[in-house]
């Protein structure tokens, strides 16, 4: 009984920790200013920019993460272990460090060539997408690989024996069977991308009405002592994040029971 009380006590204290922190926002909450700030051009811009950038970054992460995860899950090749380890970099390295690495890269000859001949990233919207992509690609690949690992190989073996090429097996058997896992990976990557701050501010900077995503807006408003504006942005981020995670639970997707 003592043990039961102890572990439930721990669960309740975690809840209280976050509840108290969020409750403290109410002390600075002003309903009139809240609505006015919420519908302001600058806030709407931040929301739109965050949604678009996170969506593009997620699409890119899944687009490259899915085949990469398949390769890591199904084939043995030289360097597989190294690639598998590198996927952990976004988890091991803080987002700020990751942003710094990207910024340093653009100061190398290759980075400069990319910026001059392909696309500008530093202090641009594309830089936001790049920063979010770099922070989510590894995680998306890891999550999709876990989902692919759970599919018994015999389904693919049977499909090939029935005449399907490896590509057809991938499209008609592997993807449909791991659909839930792929969607879950995409949603969680998107949630991470939309809340991404460290790498984004390093690469894209904090320019109002240009590279001001929701997390950057929170930072900028707090820096200028605009508490109401900060709270509005925090609530927006909270609502978006919680909605996404609720959607994962509602769809019964793996990883979030």
């Amino acid at each position, binding site marked *: 009984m003592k043990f039961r009380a102890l572990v439930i006590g721990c669960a309740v204290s975690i809840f209280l920790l976050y509840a108290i922190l969020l409750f403290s926002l109410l002390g600075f909450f002003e309903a009139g200013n809240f609505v006015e700030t919420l519908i302001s051009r600058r806030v709407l811009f931040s929301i739109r920019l965050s949604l678009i950038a996170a969506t593009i970054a997620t699409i890119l992460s899944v687009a490259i993460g899915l085949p990469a995860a398949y390769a890591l899950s199904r084939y043995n090749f030289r360097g597989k272990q190294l690639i598998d380890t590198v996927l952990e970099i976004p988890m091991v390295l803080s987002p700020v460090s990751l942003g710094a690495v990207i910024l340093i890269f653009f100061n190398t000859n290759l980075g400069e060539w990319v910026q001059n001949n392909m696309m500008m990233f530093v202090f641009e919207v594309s830089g936001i997408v790049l920063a979010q992509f770099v922070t989510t690609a590894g995680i998306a690949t890891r999550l999709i690989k876990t989902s692919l690992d759970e599919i*018994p190989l*015999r*389904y693919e*073996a*049977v*499909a*090939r*024996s*029935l*005449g*399907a*090429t490896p590509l*057809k097996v991938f499209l*008609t*058997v592997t993807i*449909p*069977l791991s*659909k839930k896992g792929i969607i879950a990976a995409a949603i969680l990557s998107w949630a991470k991308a939309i809340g991404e701050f460290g790498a984004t501010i390093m690469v894209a900077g904090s320019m109002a009405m240009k590279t001001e995503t929701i997390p950057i807006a929170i930072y900028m408003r707090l820096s200028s002592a605009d508490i109401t504006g900060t709270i509005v942005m925090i609530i927006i981020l909270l609502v978006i994040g919680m909605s996404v995670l609720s959607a994962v639970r509602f769809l019964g997707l793996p990883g979030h029971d």
Partner: protein
Amino acid sequence: MIELRNLTIKAQDFETESLSLSVRPGEVHGLIGPSGSGKTLILETIAGLHKPHKGNILIDGKDITLLQPEKRAFAYVPQDASLFPHLSVEENIGYGVKVSNKGINSEMKDYIRHLCERLNIQHLLERSPAKLSGGERQRVTLARALAIRPRLILLDEPMSALDPAIKEETYYLFKELHRELKFTAFLVTHDFEEAFFLSDVFSILIDGKIRQTGKRKEVLYHPKDIRVARFLGVTNLFEGYVEDVSQDYIVLDWRDAGEKLVVRRTFRDRWVTEDTDLIWGVRPEDVHIIKGDRKVSGENLFDVNLLSIYSGKNIHNLVSRLSQDGAVIKISVRDIILQKLGIHTGSELQIHINPETIILLPPEG
């Protein structure tokens, strides 16, 4: 004809010896071996899912060892059916035709409809595989494999997971379908019943080596060596000395018993010569108990003492001893026979070993 020619397969902690066998068109070839003998690996190699270390796989003399699995037209049926859970029964059956871009023409539709009728699954077409019973799943899997009109069906213990009653029903269905369509199949299993029910030709795989290939009677009554004999249920094995060899019979001196034994000689026993040692064996089910208290005289009749009875569902396994310190002989009798005989532990019995059922084997080593 499908041929394995000197095929060697290596896996992480397993390696087969050089394997050679052939499967004739319209034949069901059963590869029987104990669990862990590499049967599934061999099947996957034939399917093209695993690369052999050495040797070749040929179809009508053409080497297909390195051909992609999807180009072989070998339909693989794994142990647990493996119907695609995201597709309906109908979509599962049509999968092979659909992905191979052959297109489902009216002839193909008729053929698939016929398959479904013969396998009695036409009422299941809209269902999800998750809602099928074990027997239904196995029938749908068979339809899916046959739908592509494969050159060869590769069956991995296809009915081992089914309930006994369903299993027997599915055996009959398989045999009927085989008689009609005359498809070629290669079956691997550890289950004798499954192998002997479904196959025409048998290969015995022990420790990664095919020890013997032959038809039913040949494999059952003329195993090549002691390991094959033991594996096929010849649990009564004794040392013997060949005293006399005539046109139709061989007379042995049963070393452990000091008795004479007459064996029916067949052309497969030509290797047996007079004044040599050998091993002889008999299956427990081929040892017969003489009914009644009066002793009978004649050849291959022996007096034994019943040591113990181990009862199964329909079969009783009896352990008997020839004399005080003599050879131990195992006997299998059906339930009804045991009841009629009215015997019990300690009973004195007379047994008969039919000369036709005695198996002769070369001595070990």
